[in-house]
C-alpha cells in the first residue's frame, strides 16, 4: 500500500485523525488521550496491522514533550509515523504502548530516563541507563545543564 492509499484507509476507519504527508512517511498526529485507542487500532486492523514498532523516540520540542513512534506492518510492508505530544509541560505523561508492542517496554524506559516523560500503566517505570537513585534531571532535555558538558 502506498502512502496515498494508506491515508485513505486510515481516514475510512477514523476520520478524526490528523494525517500529514511527511517527507518519507505518513505522519499521524494524535492527542495523548487517543494514543492507546489509535495504537490498538493500527495494530489490530487487518488492513493496517502495524505489528512492528521500529523505533520510539522522545523529543523535547519547544512547545511540548513529544513521542514519535515509527510503525511498520510486516504483512503489508508499509510504514507510518505516529506522533503524540504530552499535554503537560511540567509533568509530562502519556499512556504506555508496551502492552501493544512489547519492545516499547525498554524504549519507554529510555524515554523516561533521558527525556522525562512518564508512561502510565508501564510495568516497570524506572530509569534504564542512568542511576536510579542519584541522577538528577533528564539529559536529553534542552534545558539540562551539567558542568561536565564540553562546549567547543
Amino acid at each position, binding site marked *: 500500500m502506498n502512502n496515498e492509499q494508506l491515508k485513505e484507509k486510515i481516514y475510512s476507519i477514523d476520520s478524526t485523525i490528523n494525517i500529514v504527508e*511527511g*517527507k*518519507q*512517511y505518513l*505522519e499521524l498526529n494524535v492527542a495523548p488521550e487517543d494514543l492507546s485507542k489509535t495504537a490498538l487500532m493500527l495494530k489490530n486492523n487487518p488492513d493496517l496491522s502495524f*505489528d*512492528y*514498532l*521500529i*523505533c520510539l*523516540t522522545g*523529543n*523535547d520540542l519547544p512547545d511540548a514533550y513529544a513521542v*514519535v513512534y*515509527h510503525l511498520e506492518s*510486516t504483512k503489508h*510492508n508499509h510504514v507510518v*509515523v505516529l506522533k503524540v505530544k504530552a499535554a503537560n509541560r511540567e509533568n509530562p505523561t502519556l499512556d504506555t504502548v508496551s502492552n501493544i*508492542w*512489547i*519492545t516499547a*517496554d*525498554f*524504549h519507554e524506559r*529510555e524515554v523516561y530516563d*533521558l527525556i522525562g516523560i512518564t508512561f502510565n500503566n508501564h510495568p516497570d517505570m524506572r*530509569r*534504564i*541507563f*542512568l*542511576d536510579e537513585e542519584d541522577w538528577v534531571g533528564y*539529559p*536529553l532535555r534542552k534545558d539540562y545543564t551539567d558542568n561536565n558538558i564540553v*562546549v*567547543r
Partner: protein
Amino acid sequence: MEDIIINENQIKQEEYIVNMGPQHPSTHGVLRLKISLKGETVEHIEPHCGYIHRGIEKMCERLTYQQIIHLTDRLDYLSAHTNNEAVCLLVENALQIEVPERVKYIRTILDELTRLASHQLWWCAFGMDLGALTTYFYGLRDRELILDIFEETTGARLLQSFNTPGGLMNDIHPNFIKKVKEFIVHFRKKLPEYDELLTGNVILRERTNDIGLLTLEEAISYGVTGPSGRASGFACDVRKHHPYSAYDKVDFKEILYTKGDCFHRYKARVEEMWESMKIIEQLIDNIPEGDYAVKMKPIIKLPEGEYYQRVEAARGEFGVYVLSTGEKYPYRVKFRSPNFSNLSAINKLGAGHKIADLVAIGGSLDLVIPDIDR
C-alpha cells in the same frame, strides 16, 4: 508441640540472585544481568544497562552532520561502516543528492565485508561462550584478512569513518579488488571448516537446539531484528524490503527459519556469511568508474523536518532519526540500535533455562553493549 511444626509456606524463601556482569566473560562487555536462580535454573533475568552510556545522542546535538558520523562508529563498533552509511544516506536523502553509482557499489561491498567480519567475530565468541575456545582463533584469523582490506582502503581496522555525506572519504585502494577476491577464495575454503568444527558438533546441537525459543509473533513484538529475528521467521531484512545503496542490483537470499531457537540463530548467521560472499562476488567485478564523492557544501544544513533512515547492520535494523530545524546542528538525533531491542527479549528467551543456556542465548543474540547503551 503444635507450634514447632513448620509449614512449608512459612519458611522464608530467599531468592538466589546472581549478578552476571558488569564484569563477566560471557556478556562481552559491561552488561549486567541480574538473574534469580533456582538451583541451576534461571527464573528471571533483569538486564541492567547503562554502564557504558556516553550520551552520544546528546553529543550529536552539538555536532555537524559530518562530525556525527565518527560517533556512529562507536555505537555498534562491529558494524561501523553500516552505521556510518545510515547517517550519510539520511543526509543524502534529505538533501536529495544522488551519489555516484561507484559510491553505492563500494558502500555495499564494504557493508558486506563488515557483516562478514562481524559474523566471524560472533562465531568465535559464540564458540567460546559454549566452551570451544579454539573457534576464537580460527574466526579471528580469517577476520584479520578483512581488517587488512579495511585498513588498506579506509586507514582504520575497526572504526573506519569512511563514509561522508555525498560519498566516501577516499577512493578505494588499487589493491582493494584483488584483495577482496583473494579473501573470498580463501574464505570459501575456510567456512566449511567452521561447519565441521562447530555446526555439526553433537555437543553444540544439544546445547542449542530448543534453547531460547522465540516465536514469530514474539520476535515482531519484541522488535528482534537481524539474524536473530530472521531465525524466528521475521522477514526483517532492510536490504531486501527497503533496498538502499546497491542492494537492489544484487541477487541474494534472505535467510529465514521458523523455529527461532539458538541453533537456528546460529545457522542464520553462518548462512548469511555465504550470502554476503555472494553479494560481494556479484559486485566486485562491476564497480563502475566515476567519482568517489559528490562535492558537498562545507556546511550541511538539512531542511526543516523529520527524517528516518534504516539500514541493515550486522545485528539487525539500525535506524537514525533526525529532527532538523534547518540549522547546521540537528535538533534531535536518535539511534535505533538493534541490540537494544534484541536485549529486551532476553528474559523471554532465558527464563526457565539453565545458566549455561543463558550464556548460549546471550551469545546467539550477539549483543554489542555500546550499541545498547549509546
